[in-house]
């Protein structure tokens, strides 16, 4: 990492490009960003990887901590783990042809995540059906699919961790399957395998930097969909132009994608649309997500069984690392659904057998998630709370952000915690000058 950068697990800030506008300050839901000396951007380690700052930056100084397309090395066994959002980037193209394009690009295997989303869907329905009788989990259950939502809850709404559906996330199911069935053969033969997660957002599968410092085996790399799009679009165009594509052989069912509703998963509501649950909701957008979580915390929505949250507006199609506009992508998905209808390729009975064996239960207790952030947000004592109020009384409270903190309250907290000096407040300085 070069010197003029600061980075979290998920995003990098380029100090040379930063103009100090501080637009990112206000959009950060966990108030993790501070602007110092007009240019440099200091980040409190509270980043949950939502990518809102990337969206807000006019200078392009903030980028996802993904690797970029040039890492695709031909001498490795490259496996693409494909978010269904990728399909929606190619209006009018069948998912299987997009996967074929990836193969032409040099990926030896393409893993269709929607297959695992379907497994997740069955497991979720089963859990909710059983919970209706046992009432062991509180309503409403919250979808664990969006990792940003889960981290947001762990960080800001720990009360709601018991509401997070304790079923393994589709990405985890996918990684487990690939690691246990697809890769071992290669590794036995001494080949190096690299897993490429093709993501619509800066969040990684399970951020290694949050859980452990160890380098995962096999190597896992996160790529933004917009990173590979320019190259992939060429191959997809070729495939489209060629017309009839000979059927190609795959070893596992999830290496290709036969259903049209796979692309629906990227859309807000795509998770629950086809689910067999009586009372469910889909909420998208960061502000809306936070507002709903606040309401659930206050005891509302207990008559709802399941809520799908996506912090990006319109769902993952609105991810900050997508290649085409979210509304164009949504249109493409809707056309696809209209043409092919909804349908699942897996059978409930098979999944239920796995469910009985406990294969979908999350290993991590949700309470452990809070520890990811616990160290960074030390609790305030009564004394500190009083001091913060005193600082708040001194400063004007207009949330001008000139001090480099996102709002006055956070600035006051920084002052009391020792991360900022009172004199950094412009209003306060102006006042003292007047008096002199």
């Amino acid at each position, binding site marked *: 990492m070069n010197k003029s950068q600061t980075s979290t697990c998920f995003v990098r800030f380029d100090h040379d490009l930063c103009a100090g506008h501080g637009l990112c300050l206000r959009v950060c839901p966990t108030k993790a960003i501070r602007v110092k000396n007009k240019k440099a951007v200091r980040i409190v380690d509270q980043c949950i990887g939502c990518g809102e700052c990337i969206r807000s930056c006019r200078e392009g100084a903030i980028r996802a901590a993904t690797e970029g397309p040039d890492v695709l090395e031909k001498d490795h066994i490259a496996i693409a783990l494909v978010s269904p959002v990728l399909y929606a980037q190619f209006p009018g193209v069948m998912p299987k042809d997009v996967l074929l394009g990836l193969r032409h690009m040099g990926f030896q295997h393409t893993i269709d995540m929607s297959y695992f989303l379907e497994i997740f869907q069955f497991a979720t329905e089963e859990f909710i059906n059983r919970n209706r009788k046992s009432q062991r989990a509180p309503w409403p259950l919250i979808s664990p699919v969006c990792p940003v939502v889960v981290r947001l809850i762990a960080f*800001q709404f720990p009360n709601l961790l018991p509401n997070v559906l304790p079923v393994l996330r589709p990405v985890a199911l996918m990684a487990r399957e690939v690691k246990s069935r697809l890769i071992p053969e290669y590794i036995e033969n001494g080949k190096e395998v690299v897993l490429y997660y093709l993501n619509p957002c800066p969040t990684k599968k399970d951020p290694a930097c949050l859980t452990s410092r160890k380098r995962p085996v096999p190597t896992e790399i996160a790529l933004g969909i917009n990173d590979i799009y320019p190259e992939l679009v060429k191959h997809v165009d070729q495939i489209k132009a060629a017309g009839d594509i000979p059927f190609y052989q795959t070893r596992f069912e999830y290496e290709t994608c036969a259903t049209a509703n796979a692309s629906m998963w990227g859309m807000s509501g795509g998770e629950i649309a086809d689910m067999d649950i009586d009372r469910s909701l889909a909420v998208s957008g960061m502000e809306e997500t936070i507002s709903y979580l606040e309401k659930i915390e*206050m005891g509302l929505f207990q008559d709802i069984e399941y809520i799908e949250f996506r912090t990006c507006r319109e769902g993952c199609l609105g991810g900050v690392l997508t290649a085409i506009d979210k509304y164009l992508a949504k249109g493409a998905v809707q056309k696809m659904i209209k043409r092919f209808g909804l349908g699942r390729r897996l059978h409930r009975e098979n999944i239920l057998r796995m469910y009985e064996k406990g294969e979908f239960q999350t290993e991590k207790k949700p309470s452990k998630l809070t520890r990811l952030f616990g160290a960074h947000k030390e*609790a305030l004592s009564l004394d500190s709370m009083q001091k913060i109020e005193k600082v708040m009384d001194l400063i004007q409270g207009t949330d001008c952000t000139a001090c480099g903190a996102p709002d006055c309250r956070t600035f006051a907290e920084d002052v009391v915690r020792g991360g900022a000096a009172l004199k950094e407040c412009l209003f306060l300085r102006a006042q003292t000058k007047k008096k002199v």
Partner: protein
Amino acid sequence: MSKFKKSFHIKGRDFIRAGEASINVQNLLKSMDFDSRLTRRVAICGYESEMNVVMHGGDGSLSVEVDTDRLILEITDDGPGIDDIDLAMQVGYSTANDDHREMGFGAGMGLPNMKKNSDRIHIESKKDQGTVVRMIFFLPEGGKTD
């Protein structure tokens, strides 16, 4: 250690901003290390009482006071007051009008819910003289848990 107190304004009949005061209280409590079950109980009580003010009361305020051994939530308003407090505490009793019911309120669960979620509740009210609801939550030893 000394007490900490802060209060937030509640505007009567403002259904759009309803809930803001309790969210503010909630955010304050989150920056201190209270047990999450406690903050949840406070949140439920805060919201229920705030909605009562928004629906029936005029203007009011929600204040939170943290002492070493207890947390006190106090809601005051200059609304119509409660005629018969015992009756109001009964599950299912409600004075909500049709407009409130259309918005999903008025199930007669507000005060009972507050009683259930707080350790002590005290209501002071007279017809046409406003209402003060004081709820106490006892804190585990030292005021902190975990």
